[in-house]
């Protein structure tokens, strides 16, 4: 499942909804991304997440479908927020559930790595040194490249 929304999300409620009554699930892995208060040596007051409505959902759906092809998942969820967010606020949630923990760990890690390099979101940070668009990081490209099938 994919949700792109301005509102915050409740991780506990989402975990419960995904696993409720699904007694074949043995392991659930979740990742929550939070707004940090520092970018290098600049202090962040807030950030604004811009996205591409339509393509964002499409890309996230394709990334999730790829995870479901690669791992035997009993369920998965991606929620990504947009708009203005302050330090400490939740940005993104990825949950994967499977009979065994190995598949859940790998699929969750894959989803956030691919999302970071493929889903059309852009971060504008308000810092004490002015507003700046966040630059893509080469380590994110490397993290995503690990999952490209040889």
């Amino acid at each position, binding site marked *: 499942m994919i949700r792109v929304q301005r509102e915050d999300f409740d991780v506990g409620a989402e975990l419960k909804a995904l696993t409720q009554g699904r007694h074949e699930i043995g392991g659930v892995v979740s990742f929550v991304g939070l707004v940090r208060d520092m970018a290098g040596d600049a202090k962040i007051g807030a950030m604004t997440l*811009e*996205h591409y409505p339509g*393509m964002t959902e499409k890309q996230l759906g394709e990334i999730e479908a790829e995870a479901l092809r690669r791992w035997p998942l009993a369920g998965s969820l991606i929620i990504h927020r947009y708009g203005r967010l302050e330090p400490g606020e939740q940005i993104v949630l990825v949950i994967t559930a499977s009979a065994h923990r190995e598949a859940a760990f790998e699929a969750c890690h894959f989803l956030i790595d691919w999302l970071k390099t493929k889903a*059309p979101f852009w971060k504008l940070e308000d810092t004490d040194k002015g507003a700046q*668009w966040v630059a893509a990081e080469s380590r994110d490209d490397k993290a995503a490249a690990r999952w490209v099938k040889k």
Partner: protein
Amino acid sequence: MKILWFAWLRTRVGSAEESLTPPPDVRDVRGLLAWLKTRSPGHAEALKNLDVVRVAVNQTYVQADHPVAAGDEVAIFPPVTGG
């Protein structure tokens, strides 16, 4: 053709969305970007370094040789930084 600009490309171009009719010799993404560069100093500045420019046609990532046509939605943006 609908052109969508995002993030710092949008701020340089000064517009989030343009409805344009490129000349008939613009047949692919490479030709479209070359033509867009000529439209204003802001466009030229935005498209100065194509290494940091990504293009999606009808919401799918494409390469420079991908064809573009009249009814297309062409999005132009920097590398993504979500998550």
